[in-house]
Every structure is written in structure tokens, then in C-alpha cells.
């Protein structure tokens, strides 16, 4: 049975922003590594630019590649629920990553980040960093459920702390967009104490805008997701970036590995792995620094 070939399908969103790019990288890296270790494992990796295409990819995997297991990071929960349910019904193993499906109990394995938690940890850090309150601006991601959950978590955490949100705009997890938005925030608000950029790509844009405007009222920018450049700056004690909140794109690699090992050893590990968001500060930054990752 050891030489029996198994095919694992991996379906993830395309690399349209930094975090997704990192996730793509970790998926590809995990596949390369596992293909070498287990010659009898075959992988199909498909990236999709919208939910409908992701459903197409999954259909194709079932119809033409006879996958034995599916690792899926759903673009959105609802549209993918039905198709993944059908994969499950065909007898394949299903691992869901990051975004849960809207019906419980479909997946055999669930590896996930914690979006409300991500917002909450960020908010708690803000609270701690500005005990007397202050005025902040917030850059949001692409309008999605993920973004909503993070922002809600954040707002709940700073509630009653005296921290006032001057404005929120969508920076779409994009450096250029957030650069523009931040430039305009700076025009509009003469005094900003801190920025929650909610993502490191956006934090890069925000920092660029602040630097260009030469403003020194902003004490720090809190990004998120642990981009290596940002972690490095935290590690080096950059005052503008005193902390970070993790949301590791490498969770996809964990999911693929666990699934692969499960298939090969015929002892699949089922259950739920929630990878909580951790606050990174200068003290622990070294543990979260992966110089080889593109993210």
C-alpha cells in the first residue's frame, strides 16, 4: 500500500495581494518539499481569482484528476460550501484552511487563523500603547467578511479606551491604495496619534505617505500578518513599528503537510487547528522572522 499513488488537490486564491502571495509561496514550497519526500504523492495546485473560478478548479480536480484529498482555502465561505461538500461526498479527504465553510462538519481537518482574534489582539495592543487614549485612523482591506471580522474585533477591543477612530477607508491590502488614502488622511487630520493599517502591505504604504509628508505627530503604525521586512524593523527596534500581529500565511503549508502525512501513513489526523494571532514585539520578533519567505 506504500507505493499506491495518492493525489492531493490544493485550491487557493491567486496572489493578488501580499498575504495571498506569501500563502501561494508557502503552498508551492510545501508541495515541492513533499513531492520529493513522498514520490507516490501527486499534487494539483490551482489558484483562482474569484470564487466561481475556484469552484471550477475543484470540479476539474474531481472530474479529471481523481483527487484523494482536497486542501482548500476558500475564497469565500458560502460559495465553496456546496462544491466542497460534493468532494467530500465523492469519498475524498477534505482539509479546509483559514476560512470555515458555512456548514459545519464537512471537513476532516480544519486549519485556521482567527480573524476576530487578529482584530482583538491589535486593539488590545493599541489600548496598551495609548493608555490615555488618542486619535487614530484605520485602513481596511478589500471589503470582505474577513475584513469585517477583523475590524469588528478591533473596535470591540478599543471600546471605552478613549481611543477615537478619526476615519476608516479601504486600502484594499494594497500599498499604492493605502499610500493614497494615508496622504489624504494626513491632509484631513492635523493630529493623528497612531495608525492601524491592519496589514503589512498597507503599513508600507502608510509609512511612505507619512515619510513624504514629514509629519511627526504619528507615534506608530501597527500593521499585521508578519511580513518579514516589518518583523525585521520591529526586531531592530524601529519606533514607528513597535509591534506586529501574526496571521501566518504559512498555515497553508501546515495544512498540506498534515494532510499528506495523514494520507501516506493511513492515519489521518483530523480535528481543528486554530492558529491564534500573536502579538509580536521586539522581544519575541526573532521567532517570527523567516528571511526566505517572499512575504
Amino acid at each position, binding site marked *: 500500500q506504500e507505493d499506491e499513488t495518492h493525489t492531493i488537490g490544493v485550491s487557493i486564491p491567486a496572489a493578488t495581494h501580499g498575504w495571498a502571495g506569501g500563502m*501561494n509561496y508557502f503552498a508551492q514550497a510545501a508541495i515541492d518539499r513533499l513531492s520529493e519526500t513522498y514520490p507516490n504523492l501527486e499534487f494539483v495546485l490551482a489558484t483562482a481569482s*474569484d470564487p*466561481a*473560478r475556484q469552484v471550477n478548479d475543484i470540479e476539474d480536480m474531481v472530474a479529471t484528476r481523481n483527487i484523494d484529498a482536497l486542501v482548500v482555502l476558500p475564497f469565500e465561505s458560502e460559495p465553496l460550501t456546496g462544491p466542497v461538500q460534493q468532494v467530500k461526498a465523492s469519498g475524498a479527504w477534505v482539509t479546509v484552511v483559514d476560512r470555515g465553510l458555512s456548514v459545519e462538519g464537512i471537513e476532516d481537518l480544519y486549519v485556521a487563523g482567527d480573524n476576530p482574534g487578529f482584530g482583538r489582539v491589535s486593539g488590545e495592543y493599541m489600548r496598551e500603547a495609548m493608555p490615555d487614549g488618542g486619535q487614530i485612523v484605520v485602513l481596511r482591506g478589500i471589503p470582505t467578511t474577513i475584513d469585517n471580522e477583523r475590524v469588528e474585533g478591533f473596535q470591540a477591543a478599543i471600546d471605552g479606551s478613549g481611543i477615537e477612530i478619526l476615519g476608516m477607508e479601504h486600502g484594499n491590502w494594497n500599498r499604492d491604495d493605502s499610500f493614497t488614502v494615508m496622504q489624504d488622511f494626513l491632509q484631513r487630520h492635523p493630529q493623528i496619534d497612531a495608525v492601524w493599517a491592519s496589514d503589512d502591505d498597507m503599513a508600507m504604504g502608510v509609512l511612505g505617505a507619512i515619510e513624504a509628508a514629514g509629519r511627526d505627530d504619528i507615534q506608530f503604525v501597527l500593521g499585521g500578518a508578519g511580513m518579514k521586512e516589518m518583523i525585521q524593523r520591529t526586531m531592530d527596534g524601529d519606533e514607528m513599528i513597535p509591534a506586529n500581529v501574526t496571521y501566518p500565511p504559512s498555515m497553508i503549508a501546515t495544512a498540506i503537510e498534515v494532510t499528506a502525512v495523514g494520507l501516506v501513513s493511513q492515519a489521518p489526523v483530523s480535528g481543528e487547528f486554530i492558529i491564534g494571532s500573536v502579538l509580536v514585539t521586539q522581544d519575541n520578533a526573532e521567532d517570527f522572522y523567516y528571511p526566505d519567505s517572499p512575504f
Partner: protein
Amino acid sequence: MTDIARAPAARPRLGRIRMGVIGPILALVVLMAIGASMNENFLSWNNMTNVLARSAFIGIIAVGMTFVITAGGLDLSVGSMAAFVAGLMILVMNLALPSMGVGLPVVMLGVGVALLAGLVAGLLNGIFVTALRIEPFIVTLGSMGIYRSLVTWLADGGTLSLDFGLRTFYQPVYYGGIFGISWPIIVFAIVVIIGEIIMRGTAFGRHCAAVGSNEQVARYSSVRVGRVRLMTYAALGLLVGIAVVMYVPRLGSASSATGVLWELEAIAAVIIGGTFLKGGFGRVWGTVLGVLILSMIGNILNLTDFVSPYLNGAIQGAIIILAVVLQRESKAGH
């Protein structure tokens, strides 16, 4: 001499047309051969119906787009329009659910809303283009932004999801069918057949080509130019509504990511099929081939993993260009 001259004259023109006809067919056949050689399951019934069914949405829209483009127009808003109509449909169905309960009536209500919303959206585009005489590119670029925004707003930045029970009830519209052929394929086929008949066999089809080929001439020939244009947009809107009726049971949700870039795919399919982007000539069956070529490319790329998925887009781009090179080859010599 005139009589003698007449008979043989048909030949050279036919020769030219024939390449235009064979081009997209050839491209499709080549693509299928490649697919079949890469994976034995490619030609399986299952895979083929999958590809056909998923082509149905863009296919249905592209049939409407063929008319709009033939009449000298363009519509960039169809993707966002589809997202907005889907969102509206889901919202209305969810709202009506408590009072109507899961069942046919609520689905019929949803279908009615989708068709009506599509029609109205199409009419709006058409009115701006015909009555206010604004460049279609600008009108539909504007409405593309508007609908995309509206669906994001309706969904409060997240996803609008159809009630799960209702979705289970409604799902057979995508997954079910007769004689093993699923509904989207059947509806797509019907739309194509009707479209082909209208384009080639009716006064409306002729008028579209006339308007797109030379608006002045059409006007001087008593063709109601504004009405023809308006009707192409309205028809496209209605077809977007029909596509949404098929789409919603498939995914059960709508969000700002729904239908992104459908417009470019639909327009590309129309042009690959041999319709002139500048208007004046259109063929519905060509559009169908265009749609199939485009969705087969995606399918084939999933069959193998001989390239980095990062490069999928590059291969798609190259094949789109090649499909048209194949078709136009003969023209270059002309």
C-alpha cells in the same frame, strides 16, 4: 457578360469567409486535442458537462454582448451588473422567506426580481447611450463602478448568502437537468439557438448589423437606430438576469468578488468568435466557440501541472492571441 460573371464570383469571397469560419473551430479542435492528449479524463462526459455548464453564465451574457457589439456598442458593466443582480435576488429571497417559506413561490419571486433587475439595468445603460449619446465605453465604465459598489454596500462589505434551506431547494436548477444534461447547458443552448435565429433570420438582427456598420445609412433607411441600440442593451441586461438565475443556485452567494472580469471574458469571446469589435457584423455561433475556447483553456491548465500556476495567466493570454491569429491568418495575405 454579367450573367457569366455572376456564378464564379462567389468563390473568392467564400474562400475568405471560410477561413474566418474555420479559424475558431480549428482553434477549439486543437485545444481539445491537446486536452485529450494530456489527460484521459478530459473528454469524459463528466468533464465536458462541467466545462459546458460553467461556460453557461458567461456564454449567456456573451450572446447578448454579440448583439450589443454588432450594433456598434460595448458593455463593460455586465460583470458588476451580474454581481448586483445576484445580490439583489438573494436579498429579496431571504427577505421573503419568513413569510413565503421554502418553495417554488419564493424561487419564482427571486427569478422575477433577477430578470426585472437585469432588464432595468440594461435599459439604463441603453438610455444613457442612446438618449444622451454618451460613449458606451464611458457609460458602462461608470455603471460598472456603480453596480460593483452597490453590491458591496448591499452585502455590507461581506457576502450575501442565500438561506441554506432555500439554496438546497433551488440547487437543482444548476446541478439538475434532463437526460443527464444540466439546466445551465440547456438554457445556454436555447439562448444560443434563439440568438442565432434572431441574428441571422430576423429584421432585428439585420438592423443591428446595419446600425453598427453605418449609423447614418441605417437612419436614412428608416431604421429606428436608437430603439435598436436600446434593445440590444436591454436584451443584454435580461440575459445577465438569466445568467444570474443559473448562477445563484451554483454558489448561493454574491459579493464584491462575484463576476469580476466577466465583461472582458465576454467581450473576448465575442471577438474570438469573429464578430467585429467596431460593429457591423456579428455571429452568435462564433461567440459560443469563443466562450468554449476560453473556458477550455482554464480547464486544460487544471489537467496538468507542467507550469507554475503563476504562469497560468500568461498561457491563457498567449492562447487567446493564438486563437485569433489562426483565424485571421488568411486576412493578412488579403
